[in-house]
């Protein structure tokens, strides 16, 4: 009965979503307060019904209800409880349900925080998001019902893909979807703004900005988790493969990054208005495209897509309606938005515009490399693949100027700056960058770093030095204000920006050094034998059989020492999952700030007791994910920025309560307050 309840809840949610999509926006159009007021209860009802449906599916997993086809395909009686709960999003149907749940979750949060948002704007925003949930729910109900029964009921489930039975993979999809769905907020605000151009654009931006920052931070964490998972779970030690699945999540990230920065300009200076709207539409459209690319099966085979045209056609139709509709609306209405304020050539706006264009170009390049093979296969049947060399050769030249401008931008004033002053600021940063990158590069690489590696380090040094230069200038005691007073006066938005920028610097250090200094060896080792890699002695002590809850396998014990002193013991495993008989490599990693030691078991050599063992020494690889975490922290800090709440409070009747912080900043700092 529980699965039927969940199924029914979905249909009910579909009805509520339809009402939410139509009535409140219509009320906003006709200035009917009673219709607009319907948004709140409809939104609440939609949230509760989708949550109920989600809990029903979770219950079916917890209770091993293999009469539900989806549960039978993605679970097994030996699967531990935690993975049964996570298995809800282990396949196509369930991950769509998770997507829908997160979407209505964001809508609920939006409504809670709406406070004194103008009712007409809120009605339109929730209406747009209601329409999106309607599309998703309809897709689920017509093509991918997670509650479909399987008769006769199988004795045993097929099991969750062993690759997904891992903590990193449990968290990865929810974080990623949080990001995707979060961009729906900016999208909905953009559509609402286009529907009612008489509204003040800057006002909706103030509202949408923290939400976009939160979405961007989630997406960053989600992508980083996926990369980290690939690193330790796939057993070959790479962290990014330019795989279509990865690209699908990376494209919205690039567009979202451009959106965040463009929003800052529009909010601060009123410039880039239409551009910001367009980016909001693009970021969410790419999120949709990403979800569908991964979830429709089109990547594994365009033929699978063609043999089950129902899903494919629905997806294409939905994309056409959302992307085409919003772009059409944009084309019709954007001109009314005006171009916004003018700015000089030497201004922060210029650097932000440059970066926006470059980020979108990079996004386009990734899109081309991801979709072209699919299109070619679908149209001509010719099979090609676009490998990492393409992406590397396109991406690095596009990103290098972005990185340079990223350092310069925050040091520039809005609207118009003066050359000599800028030169003075940049001179210090450049000197610092050269000094730090030079010393650091020499210390870690000696004389053996390649030109490309020096270039990478120089870029990273530049970003970090510019962050430091900006913060030093802002915190330097002056006019009787001490360091602490200056720190308190420092806008949080500056701090969050510099945190994220520093994250990019740390990320570049990691990528550069791991690419140029890593050592990889595949060797055949019998117990008692060892191999030396990059100064570390890896000794295979013994191999033993192991039994896990739902797998069996072999575990090796590898002792790592350096100069006779033991560093660590590593226990790589080769598992075979009992239900699916699928083999899995569990690499053993000793992570460290300066290097990771990585050992994974390949396969046994026939006719001996030796195994092929893969041994890596990966310097600085953890800096890649540390950098991503810093970026995400920056995003979260921007999300929590009090300034937004202050601004809203001021626009309300409760003016007396509002803290004067935002306006009380000294004029100079105001002029340079950051995105």
């Amino acid at each position, binding site marked *: 009965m529980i699965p039927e309840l969940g199924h029914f809840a979905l249909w009910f949610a579909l009805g509520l979503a339809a009402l939410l999509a139509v009535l409140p926006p219509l009320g906003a159009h006709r200035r009917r307060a009673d219709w607009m007021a319907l948004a709140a209860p409809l939104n609440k009802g939609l949230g509760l019904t989708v949550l109920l449906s989600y809990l029903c599916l979770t219950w079916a997993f917890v209770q091993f209800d293999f009469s539900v086809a989806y549960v039978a395909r993605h679970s097994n009686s030996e699967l531990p409880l935690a993975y049964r709960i996570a298995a809800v999003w282990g396949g196509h149907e369930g991950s769509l349900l998770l997507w829908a749940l997160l979407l209505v979750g964001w809508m609920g949060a939006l409504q809670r925080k709406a406070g004194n948002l103008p009712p007409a704007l809120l009605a339109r925003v929730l209406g747009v998001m209601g329409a999106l949930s309607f599309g998703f729910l309809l897709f689920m109900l017509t093509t991918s019902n997670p509650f479909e029964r399987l008769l006769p009921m199988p004795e045993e489930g097929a099991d969750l893909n062993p690759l997904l039975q891992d903590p990193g993979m449990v968290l990865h999809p929810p974080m990623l979807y949080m990001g995707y769905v979060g961009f729906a907020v900016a999208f909905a605000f953009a559509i609402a703004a286009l529907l009612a151009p008489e509204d003040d654009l800057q006002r909706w931006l103030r509202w949408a900005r923290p939400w976009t920052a939160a979405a961007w931070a989630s997406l960053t964490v989600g992508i980083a988790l996926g990369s980290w998972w690939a690193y330790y779970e796939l057993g*070959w030690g790479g962290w990014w493969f330019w795989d279509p699945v990865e690209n699908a999540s990376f494209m919205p990230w690039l567009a979202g990054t451009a959106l965040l920065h463009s929003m800052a300009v529009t909010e601060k200076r009123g410039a880039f208005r239409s551009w910001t709207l367009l980016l909001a539409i693009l970021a969410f459209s790419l999120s949709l495209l990403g979800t569908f690319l991964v979830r429709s099966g089109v990547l594994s085979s365009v033929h699978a897509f063609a043999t089950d045209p129902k899903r494919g056609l629905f997806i294409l139709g939905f994309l056409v309606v959302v992307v085409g509709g919003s772009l059409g609306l944009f084309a019709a209405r954007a001109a009314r938005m005006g171009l916004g304020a003018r700015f000089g050539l030497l201004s922060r706006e210029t650097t932000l515009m440059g970066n926006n264009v470059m980020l979108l170009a990079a996004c386009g390049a990734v899109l*081309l490399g991801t979709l*072209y093979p699919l299109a070619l296969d679908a149209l001509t049947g010719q099979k090609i*693949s676009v490998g990492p060399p393409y992406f590397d050769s396109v991406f690095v030249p596009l990103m290098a100027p972005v990185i340079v401008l990223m350092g310069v931008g925050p040091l520039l004033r809005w609207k118009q700056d003066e050359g000599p002053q800028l030169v003075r600021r940049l001179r210090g940063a450049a000197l610092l960058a050269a000094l730090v990158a030079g010393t650091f590069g020499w210390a870690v690489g000696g004389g053996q770093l390649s030109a490309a590696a020096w270039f990478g380090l120089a870029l990273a040094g530049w970003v970090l030095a510019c962050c430091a230069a900006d913060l030093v200038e802002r915190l330097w005691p002056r006019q009787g204000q001490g360091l602490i007073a200056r720190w308190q006066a420092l806008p949080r938005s500056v701090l969050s920006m510099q945190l994220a920028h520093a994250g990019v610097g740390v990320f570049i250090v990691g990528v550069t050094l791991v690419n140029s200094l890593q050592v990889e060896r*595949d060797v055949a080792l019998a117990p008692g034998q060892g191999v030396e890699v990059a100064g570390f002695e890896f000794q295979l002590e013994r191999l033993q059989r192991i039994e896990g809850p739902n797998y069996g396998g072999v575990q090796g014990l590898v002792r790592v020492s350096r100069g006779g002193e033991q560093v660590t013991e590593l226990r790589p495993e080769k598992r075979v999952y009992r239900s699916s008989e699928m083999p899995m490599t569990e690499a053993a990693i000793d992570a460290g700030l300066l290097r990771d030691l990585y050992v994974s078991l*390949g396969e046994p050599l026939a006719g001996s007791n030796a195994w092929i063992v893969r041994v890596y020494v990966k310097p600085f690889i953890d800096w890649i994910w540390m950098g991503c975490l810093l970026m995400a922290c920056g995003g979260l800090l921007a999300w929590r920025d009090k300034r937004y709440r202050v601004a809203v409070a001021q626009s309300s009747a409760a003016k007396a309560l509002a803290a004067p912080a935002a306006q009380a900043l000294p004029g100079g700092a105001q002029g340079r307050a950051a995105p």
Partner: protein
Amino acid sequence: MLNAFQSNLVFFYSPTQVAANEAPKGRSFRIGGLVEPGSVKREGVRVNFKVTDNLHQIPVRFEGVLPDLFKEGKGVVAQGQLGPDGLFTAREVLAKHDENYMPPEAADALEQAEQARTRAQHSMGAPK
């Protein structure tokens, strides 16, 4: 950008196409099909095997750790270069994430070979 795109496309060839000399020499490409049963020979980290589409076999050499799902009789895709002696030296060997999933290129190669064989049988067996 388009230049980089052109020069970095990796094309796919089936064993039959390679046998018919359609594949480029001195340029990296992908080959796919099934791992010929009984053809996998390991010498330390070096491994030799054959990729077949049930019509033609191409010998492949690879050094290193093969993916978990590499198995005789299962689908495989290898990327690398074809030597003048007809030996394909793979830099990368792919077998995908789950048991039932066949790399699309491999599936395609098998399908084409199957069609070719049916055609061949028809033309041979057909009465004049």
